[in-house]
């Protein structure tokens, strides 16, 4: 157990995210670290290499805001809600500038984080045989199996300068617990030089230690812990609040019109001091509509040795 790493999002981003860095913001449809991404926009970081399996609206927004020059990803749309038009404009029309992209399948991208976390020179997977993907991504290579089953594709480690994730809870030293869809958060955190964790709630160490199997990112891998309730909006936090599907639908026409997207960034990000300000602007009524009813996991026992 180490000392408290609790700080503000302003300070955490200022301390750990610098221009030109490779930054992973992970969360697979769930627990997407929107509040942290918005703070990167507020602090006007530039020339970032953004790593996200599913770029989602968050990446579209960071692109509109001019923070990102390079994208490492495995999906270039927004789940059920369709295109991310800023990404499409950058790629299809080089408007306002081309976007360098590095593309994988989901498992390829996941394996890059795994290799990064485990300091392996490469990780094999069964995908890509016959695909055009390796031809356009020279980082996807192949290795001959020394057991005689032929060649297999491999991906190299991905080691971000900083990884940012959002979770349901952590203690002050950074022991981080998440449930529901756990995505690439743990390997992306272990692969990085610095890790910022934003959480719905900072809890007492006793809460974490009552259920150690839920800790997916231990304190030793975490540099900053920030309590940011609602920090995944418009994505969701299992058990806390639901996805704001209306927001996802609303983003499509905004994203389609670059001026509208810039205006949105100005109004909602630069126009608010922090995530609390963003949520206040969103309004209590909208937030109430995202609340979920409780569905308890139930408790198991870990046992204590009797004296």
């Amino acid at each position, binding site marked *: 157990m180490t000392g408290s790493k609790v700080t503000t999002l302003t300070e955490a981003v200022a301390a750990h995210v610098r221009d030109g860095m490779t930054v992973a913001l992970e969360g697979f449809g769930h627990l997407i670290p929107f509040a942290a991404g918005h703070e990167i926009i507020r602090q006007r970081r530039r020339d970032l290499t953004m790593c996200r399996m599913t770029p989602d609206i968050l990446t579209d927004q960071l692109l509109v805001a001019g923070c990102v020059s390079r994208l490492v990803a495995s*999906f270039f749309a927004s*789940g059920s809600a369709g295109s991310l038009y800023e990404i499409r404009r950058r790629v299809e029309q080089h408007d306002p500038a081309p976007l360098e992209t590095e593309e994988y399948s*989901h498992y390829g991208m996941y394996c890059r984080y795994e290799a990064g976390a485990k300091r392996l020179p490469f990780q094999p997977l069964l995908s890509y045989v016959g*695909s055009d993907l390796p031809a356009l991504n020279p980082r996807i290579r192949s290795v001959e199996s020394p057991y005689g089953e032929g060649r297999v594709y491999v991906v190299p480690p991905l080691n971000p300068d900083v990884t940012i994730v959002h979770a349901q809870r952590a203690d002050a030293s950074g022991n981080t617990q998440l449930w529901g869809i756990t995505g690439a958060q743990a390997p992306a955190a272990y692969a990085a030089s610095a890790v910022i964790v934003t959480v719905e709630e900072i809890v007492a160490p006793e809460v974490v230690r009552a259920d150690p199997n839920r800790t997916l990112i231990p304190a030793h891998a975490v540099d900053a812990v920030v309590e940011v309730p609602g920090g995944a909006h418009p994505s969701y936090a299992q058990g806390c609040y639901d996805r704001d599907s209306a927001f996802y639908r609303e983003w499509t026409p905004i994203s389609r019109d670059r001026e509208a997207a810039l205006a949105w960034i100005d109004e909602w990000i630069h126009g608010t001091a922090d995530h609390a300000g963003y949520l206040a602007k969103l309004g209590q009524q909208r937030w109430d509509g995202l609340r979920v009813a409780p569905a308890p996991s139930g408790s198991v026992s870990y046992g204590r040795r009797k004296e």
Partner: protein
Amino acid sequence: MTADSSRHGSGPSTAERSSAGRPVADVADVPPHSAEFLATVAARELAGRHRVFAGVGLPTLAVDLAKRTVNPGVELVYESGVVGAHPEAMAEGIADSVLVSGSEAMLSMDALFGYVLQGGYVDVGFLGAAQVDRVGNINTSVIGDWRRPEVRLPGSGGASDIMASAREIVVVLRRHDPHALPADVDFCTSPSPVRARRQEGFHQPEGAGVTTVITPLGILRRPDRYGELELAAVHPGVTVAEAAENTGWDLRVRADVAETPRPRAEDVRLLREEIDTVRLYLR
């Protein structure tokens, strides 16, 4: 995400102007290009299958309908890590919280892609596509040149992983024309075993590739692992010639080519009144 990425143009295609909202008095008013029709046809493909890897869009409707009709025991697996989903509401995406709550297992992505998918536990992978070609290669990446494409599509997501390891792949297309069904895809995101075999010396994936393509005109099937897609059925009101003309290669027609049975009124009722009550996919 294995999204239904078939809509690469802007604006709704004809397929999207469906019959949703009308009463289910007469199933003859459910046209073959409608989501109701396609989802019902797709659902029937799941009869007898144990485990389905479902993408977003029509696959969501189809697996839900299959579970309520032809295959109550089908196990729904999602690339987000959900295994054995029992959603209380229709999922809006493969990472929806309703898929997680009450599911049988919420695995790590490593376990999902590594153990479940590569391990060979997925019987049917349900994918969308912008293009499927003659031998079942799938393009979900770009239309035109990759460096500066005409249309930047969603990319692989899990599709190329699923193609390699699911026992078979069922594709649902929202359009049937030579652009969506070309002789050769513009870009091969997820390769057929036919294409994989050409990469000599490589450990060959286990999956049989695309076995079935459901389109607004009919059903195409590949007879075996290294075969090509053939016309197996046409939807009511569609002629064999019409299907062939709208395909980007010289489409082989099976001797036993059939007419697709219409959805039952109950199928349409379930889709409209119990599954997609918010009309997310039925439009």
